[in-house]
């Protein structure tokens, strides 16, 4: 049995990693739940955002927050353009999955072509700073990623719940023709939402660049975990996505500490299956 402090440390690591999962899941959950589009490209552009952050930072000395601002704007525009394509060709839920899968493959190859398959690490003077609480380490950047995830998830939740535009988006997801009959410009709102989801991927990308080692194939390592997170958190529920992320993150970290690191990959789907089988009230 591992020591108590090791368990505590894995708990912290799990929660913080979970925040990053939640950040990645946020955009996917929103576009799946509210636009009925399954965007596998979400992972790809998140990693693209990470590479851009790393590249701007190491080659031109651009600070991550500035890179983040550029990426968020550029990705928003990309999200709008992508949705235009979806609308133009009246893409269905299933077809969207295939198209964005192709998109992800293209992004992966492009990343590999430009920056090779080598591992990349964004080295900054402050990148490995931690707060030390008792005998525990809390890495500052991971904590920041976690806080940003909380802020975005909470903000998005409140936006969906308390604003006219947010309510309109939920109404469109439940019955679009009737929502339109009540004056909602479904088309325009879905463009905005699609842009927003892509921008969220960009934010996730910036933090991935800061806390993880980059390789083009990483796109696929997230798919399983984040899909589980999105489903556990319920489609279109931003706070659920974050909570799901934390749940999976903690379970993974504890599995690594208590059982064996190689078992971690099984955790997300085991938790998903268990929840789907036993259906606790909050799922």
């Amino acid at each position, binding site marked *: 049995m591992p020591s108590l402090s090791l368990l505590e440390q894995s708990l912290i690591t799990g929660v913080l990693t979970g925040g990053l999962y939640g950040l990645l899941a946020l955009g996917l959950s929103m576009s799946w739940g509210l636009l009925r589009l399954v965007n596998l490209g979400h992972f790809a552009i998140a990693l693209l955002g990470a590479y851009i952050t790393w590249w701007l930072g190491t080659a031109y000395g651009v600070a991550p927050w500035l890179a983040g601002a550029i990426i968020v704007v550029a990705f928003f525009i990309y999200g709008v353009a992508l949705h235009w394509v979806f609308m133009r060709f009246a893409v269905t839920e299933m077809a969207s999955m295939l198209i964005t899968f192709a998109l992800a493959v293209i992004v992966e190859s492009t990343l590999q072509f430009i920056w090779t398959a080598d591992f990349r690490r964004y080295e900054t003077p402050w990148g490995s700073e931690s707060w030390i609480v008792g005998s525990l380490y809390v890495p500052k950047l991971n904590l920041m990623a976690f806080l940003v995830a909380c802020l975005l998830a909470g903000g998005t939740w409140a936006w969906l719940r308390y604003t006219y535009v947010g*309510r309109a988006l*939920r109404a469109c997801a439940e*019955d679009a023709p*009737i929502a339109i*009959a*009540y004056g*909602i410009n*479904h088309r325009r709102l879905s463009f905005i939402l699609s842009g927003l989801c892509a921008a969220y991927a960009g934010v996730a990308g910036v933090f991935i660049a800061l806390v993880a080692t980059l390789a083009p194939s990483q796109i696929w390592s997230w798919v399983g975990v984040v899909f589980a997170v999105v489903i556990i958190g319920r489609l279109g529920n931003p706070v659920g996505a974050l909570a799901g992320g934390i749940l999976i993150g903690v379970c993974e970290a504890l599995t690594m500490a208590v059982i064996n690191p190689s078992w971690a990959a099984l955790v997300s789907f085991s938790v998903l299956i268990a929840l789907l089988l036993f259906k606790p009230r909050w799922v």
Partner: protein
Amino acid sequence: MLLEVRDIAVGYGGAPAISDVSVDVGEAEIVSVIGPNGAGKSTLINAIAGLLRWQSGAIHFGGVDLSAVAPHKVCSEGIALVPEGRRLFPGMSVEDNLDIGCYRREARRLRARGFERAYTLFPVLAERRQQLAGTLSGGQQQMVAIARALMSQPRLLLLDEPSLGLAPSIVGEMFRVIQMIQQEGMAILLVEQNVGQAMEIADRAYVLEEGHIVATGKPQVLLAQSRIREAYLGL
């Protein structure tokens, strides 16, 4: 006339479901359209509401040609739909459903007054404002559907089978409310299979069969025709 539907044809890809249909609704008038299942009543009402496009003919509302109005702008002209089967947003609260009703800018300014009127008309909804619409009883859902439409401050209310699937005791109440709304000055186009009550409250009526208007006139006059009385009231 407030609403003028002239010789419209509406279809779903194949042969038109309704054709050469003309219907008028004047200010503060209740007009009923009766007809058997599949006659095209919902098709007519959904075309007026902007849910469906018509292939020929014209719809004018308050002098505005609706063919030039985008679907999401129709409600700004003052038309509100209570669709068949209610079609609430089931996962949203009663209050959120009503808030969608006053989404359009002009209605948003009158939001407080709209809620007051809705809860005065249907006090039970005030108690259940936070409840998810999908968990309400059929009668209460119909109340939300009507209240949602009224929140948009319309000049014309389109009611598609408001009594469908409701207990007889609630049906009577529903028709009383519809009459009350008309007495406040609202124009109402009512589509019903519940012919007895639809005819009772109507100022004028149309009979729609197999996509065509086959008779029109005052309810008493229509019901004086034995063919109509037999077909719709079984008398």
